[in-house]
């Protein structure tokens, strides 16, 4: 049973349950009311409505899974940074579960804080930027399946869309636009520079990133995550395309803005960068979404290089996938807490002079393997 069938079952059951009410009302009420309720019942029972509601339920489930993972990620990040920095990390809130509830407490605190809009800010842009940032980040998860049975970008029989990889990276690349918008509309010099840096940074990492993805796609011969993971049945792409994995991890670190590459929010020189003027839950959403992007980055690295959900079948596919994604996240966080920040001209140099040739070399290697018929599943 895949996610679609599961959600479809729930929706059909719910619709039947509620339709009892509509049809009963249609029976007992006079015709001019009764027809109305019967019509509602007919609409609710129609195929189109059930499919739409199923997809809504599916999306909700994927979002909830993502949010629970984000809570875990923030907790893991804090605990891990505590281990690196010689302190305990969150401890008291949720004492028995290792301080896990601290995130919820912080979220509550951010909820009750005032949302301040600067007087000279562009109100529309200021409001729209978090929406685009959060929305586009959730959109990345739309096509990433946790297993062949857990994903929403499927048709009714459970076949995945064929261009899921393209969609995920397209959604990943929307965020710098919202960062630029946030930086510009806040009407603050620091946020403006942060937004501009985000645009400059995007130019440096996006091309090597997509070239490594292209090498994976070339080797697997498929644009869908399921096809790519199936192609890694014998050997993970991390081994033949090791250079690609390294380039990919560096680029993903730049994409999710963790410390060696967190130029847009470099707190030493730009106060808090493009998030300077955001307060309360809007800032909380930015924080939460940056970890969500970390989760998405880990999931992408898992699907493209680390064999996705493949592993000994002692534990379920989804758990395998999450274990690998968490591992990638931990590596990125390790990098984040132990490296200084690069400069904006240096990241351009890094992207164009180091990562791009490596990515092209990686593409060449992938093409060679494909021609020879090695490793391609």
């Amino acid at each position, binding site marked *: 049973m895949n996610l679609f069938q599961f959600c479809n079952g729930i929706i059909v059951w719910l619709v039947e349950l509620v339709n009892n009410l509509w049809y009963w009302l249609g029976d007992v009420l006079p015709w001019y009311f009764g027809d109305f309720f019967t019509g509602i019942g007919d609409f609710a029972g129609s195929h189109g409505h059930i499919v739409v509601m199923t997809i809504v339920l599916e999306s909700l489930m994927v979002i909830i899974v993502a949010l629970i993972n984000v809570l875990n990620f923030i907790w893991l990040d804090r605990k891990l940074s505590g281990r690196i920095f010689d302190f305990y990390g969150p401890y008291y809130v949720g004492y028995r579960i290792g301080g896990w509830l601290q995130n919820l407490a912080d979220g509550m605190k951010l909820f009750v804080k005032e949302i301040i809009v600067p007087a000279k800010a562009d109100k529309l842009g200021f409001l729209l930027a978090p929406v685009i940032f959060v929305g586009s980040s959730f959109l990345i998860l739309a096509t990433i399946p946790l297993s062949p049975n857990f994903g929403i970008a499927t048709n009714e029989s459970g076949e995945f869309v064929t261009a899921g990889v393209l969609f995920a990276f397209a959604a990943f690349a929307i965020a710098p636009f919202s960062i630029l918008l946030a930086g510009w509309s806040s009407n603050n010099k620091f946020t403006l520079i942060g937004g501009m840096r985000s645009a400059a940074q995007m130019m440096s990492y996006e091309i090597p990133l997509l070239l490594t993805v292209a090498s994976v796609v070339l080797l697997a011969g498929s644009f869908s995550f399921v096809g790519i993971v199936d192609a890694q049945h014998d050997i993970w792409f991390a081994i033949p395309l090791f250079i690609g994995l390294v380039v990919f991890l560096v680029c993903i670190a730049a994409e999710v803005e963790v410390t060696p590459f967190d130029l847009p929010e470099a*707190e030493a020189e730009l106060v808090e960068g493009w998030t300077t003027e955001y307060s309360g839950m809007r800032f909380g959403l930015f924080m939460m979404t940056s970890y969500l992007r970390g989760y998405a980055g880990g999931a992408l690295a898992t699907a493209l290089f680390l064999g996705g959900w493949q592993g000994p079948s002692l534990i379920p596919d989804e758990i395998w996938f999450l274990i690998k994604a968490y591992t990638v996240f931990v590596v990125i966080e390790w990098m984040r807490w132990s*490296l200084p920040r690069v400069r904006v001209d240096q990241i351009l140099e890094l992207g164009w002079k180091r990562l791009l040739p490596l990515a092209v070399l990686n593409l060449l290697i992938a093409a060679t393997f494909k021609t020879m018929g090695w490793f391609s599943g």
Partner: protein
Amino acid sequence: MWINMGPQHPMTHGLWNLRVKVDGETIVDAEPEVGYLHRGIEKICENRTYPQIIPLADRLCYGSSLTWSHLYCMTVEDLMGVEVPERAEYIRVVTLEMQRLASHLMWLAAYAVDLGMMAGFIYSMRDREVLVDLLQSLSGSRLTYNYPRIGGVAHDLPPNWDREALRACNYIETRLKEYEDLYEGSKIFMMRNVDVGLLTKEDALDLGVTGPPLRASGVRYDMRKDRPYSVYSDLDFEVCSRPEGDCFARYRVRIDEMWESCKIIRQAIQRMPKGKWRTVAPRNAPVGTGLGRVEDPRGEGMMYVVGDGSDKPYRLKIRSPIFITVSAAPSMLVGYKMADVVAIMGGLDMCIGECDR
């Protein structure tokens, strides 16, 4: 576009303002503004008796308060003609070098976090605790020690303190090796530091820069060697200097100084004689002047006191190294990127307490 980096800004480490004019990300002009923390200490001192000024002198610099109270006591001893017992001088040297270590570690912590490296901050602050704990067991407080006295120091060393100090030296030396690996082994750290914020020898001398920034520009000038005070002339240590004049040289000079400080502490504890640690100083100072110059962790600190025969100084002038050094900011900043501001200004080790007085 003029950008105010300060008075409330993560870069400033204190309350001052650096106005930079940027063209894109490149700095074309810079203008430091200080004075937000002016407390009028020089004027307050004119209304206090000589011993009452020691805690005030402590409050000149939160990073290395002991240097300043020691400098004040030295100056007044010069004015009054008080002979300090030798044991007191050795105790002073040990505590001064500990203060230098603590101050440089605090600088390293702030510098690491300026470059976005949280781990360095936590490690340096953790290791500074060892020295602060030692000074606390000696003087009772952790930030403003109020330990030197006119004519000696307040207390003798507690039992076993010298042994603890030697152990602290060993600990700090192992940590210093770790720092060298952590920072110099990091390619990004080198990228951010080498050839950034160049200050030529001529500029440094013209602008009156002292301390580690001057020595990093290739001038071997250290008060402890060139105009020895206390018992530094008896001790064997090197003046750390680098010819490059960039941020990395400043970092390296400070790390080398920490090694030298450990060496000095060992020697001073070894040679420390037994005996008195304090002599009685007169209540009133004679008519005349006194001058003291020390090598603060940040540069050359100088005090000039004028006595008028009463128990209060007629005038106390404080020469702060950072007040002079910060005026060299534009010549270091222009032409570099905005992200280099934190590296360059962090490399100067700003301490606004002594700068604004």
